[in-house]
């Protein structure tokens, strides 16, 4: 088979995106982002947003792509239930109407695979940091194993929750990053690493309390320094444990310059490579879903309609890696 073309649909949270990719590159991509009027993401409202826009997003992508597609891939999970169901429904309808295979993909693994595609990383330890997810993953014996992960909330949600409580608009991460640059000092905030796992909820509460007594920039700085050091520490442990010599950064929080700098230092000091994909491939995007769909399709895999139900808690280590 040559020139496989796959359309991918992503809509696990606030970003709805469709993309067409072939084995070489992204052919077309259309995105519609849900922006809450106030506060954070409301799952039902986000799903409503996706339902309102998905037909247009698919139509535009197909038009821009201007070629036949071989399969339809969609994010089967993890994610917000109502959002996942909306996108899965559209994916099923599209695959059935075009009479082509449907491929349910794991959202976390799509982040890793698009990173491997768009950088020179081949067998990395991946730090995947987004709103809801924070995981350290690496391939071993047929699966992407979770070496460490958050015990409660994702780092992005932790940042957003903190930002919201001090009156910063959603998404809070970039605002916290900006404010942190004006900090004068570090204020101790609980550093919670348990074995290979980390926890952010206690740290978030402590930061919220700390703002009452300290300047906001100082707390933003202390929050970032503490939380990111925890992530880098576990990543380094996974590197030491697996003996791999590459680190890949994935997920929307990967846009943070300080996090990149810290990971860069760790990799430099260990003498290993550090890879960061272009920003458009870091946050949730349709291209990564399409690309993982393409890999699975090429390996002869497809999802029967009866198996295409969504899984809000879909774990990456549930997936047998058939394409490597």
């Amino acid at each position: 088979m040559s020139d496989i073309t796959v359309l991918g649909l992503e809509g696990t949270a606030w970003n709805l995106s469709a993309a067409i990719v072939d084995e070489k590159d992204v052919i077309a991509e259309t995105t519609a982002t849900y922006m809450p009027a106030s506060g954070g993401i409301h799952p039902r409202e986000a799903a409503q947003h996706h339902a309102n826009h998905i037909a247009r997003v698919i139509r535009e992508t197909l038009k821009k792509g201007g070629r036949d597609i071989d399969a339809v891939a969609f994010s089967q999970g993890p994610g917000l239930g109502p959002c996942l169901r909306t996108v899965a429904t559209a994916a099923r309808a599209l695959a059935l109407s075009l009479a082509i295979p449907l491929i349910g993909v794991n959202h976390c693994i799509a982040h890793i695979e698009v990173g491997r595609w768009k950088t020179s990383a081949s067998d990395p330890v991946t730090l995947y940091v987004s709103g809801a997810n924070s995981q350290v993953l690496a391939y071993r014996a047929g699966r992407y194993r979770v070496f460490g992960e958050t015990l409660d909330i994702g780092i992005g949600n932790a940042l957003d929750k903190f930002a919201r409580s001090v009156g910063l608009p959603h998404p809070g991460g970039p605002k916290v990053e900006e404010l942190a640059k004006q900090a004068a000092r570090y204020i101790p905030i609980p550093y919670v690493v348990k074995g290979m796992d980390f926890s952010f909820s206690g740290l978030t509460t402590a930061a919220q309390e700390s703002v009452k007594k300290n300047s906001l920039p100082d707390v933003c700085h202390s929050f970032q320094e503490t939380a990111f050091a925890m992530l880098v520490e576990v990543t380094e442990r996974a590197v030491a444990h697996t003996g791999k010599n590459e680190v890949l950064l994935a997920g929307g929080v990967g846009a943070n310059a300080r996090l990149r700098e810290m990971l860069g230092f760790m990799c430099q000091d260990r003498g290993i490579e550090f890879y960061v994909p272009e920003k458009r491939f870091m946050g949730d995007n349709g291209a990564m879903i399409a690309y993982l769909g393409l890999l699975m399709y090429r390996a002869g895999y497809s999802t029967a309609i009866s198996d295409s139900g969504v899984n809000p808690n879909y774990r990456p280590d549930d997936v047998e890696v058939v394409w490597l």
Partner: protein
Amino acid sequence: MAVIASGAEAVISLEGDTIIKTRVKKRYRLKEIDENIRRERTRTEAKLISEARRCGVPTPIIKDVTDFEIKMEYIDGTPIKNVIDIFLSEKTGELVGKLHNCGLVHGDLTTSNIVHRDGKLYLIDFGLAYLDKTQEARGVDVHVLFQTFESTHENHEELIEAFKKGYRRTLSNAEEILERVKEIESRGRYA
């Protein structure tokens, strides 16, 4: 002084009959965070090593503790990785049962961290140890050890059975923990 091991967090060197474990500085961490963590973990580790021994689990004798460094007895024996048999596996079960009964979890229980010397088993490297009485923490400890059995020993099923026998002998709720281990296995994440 010879460096004998270097991990993500610490460097281990040997000076005569003394092991020196030094937690190394991390450039990615702010100095305040870095020093605080290294100091606290060094102190905790030394404390837990002594605590385990009080509960009847042989561990290295602590000679000195400074900010980022522990000096302790070098256990000049053989990691059970190289010598394990049914008998030693049962002894290992007893040892881990005692440790868990004491409220301690090792955090990195592998056959490299259990050393056989003069007919006695010693537990070393408490770098990831913590106080925890939950089934989950104990279960993960046992699961990690079973995995090293499985990955490096052909007769792992017999070794696991022998371990369980010893573990039941020293820990009253061993059965619950062993059930939990099955559940942890099915999740498959620590593989």
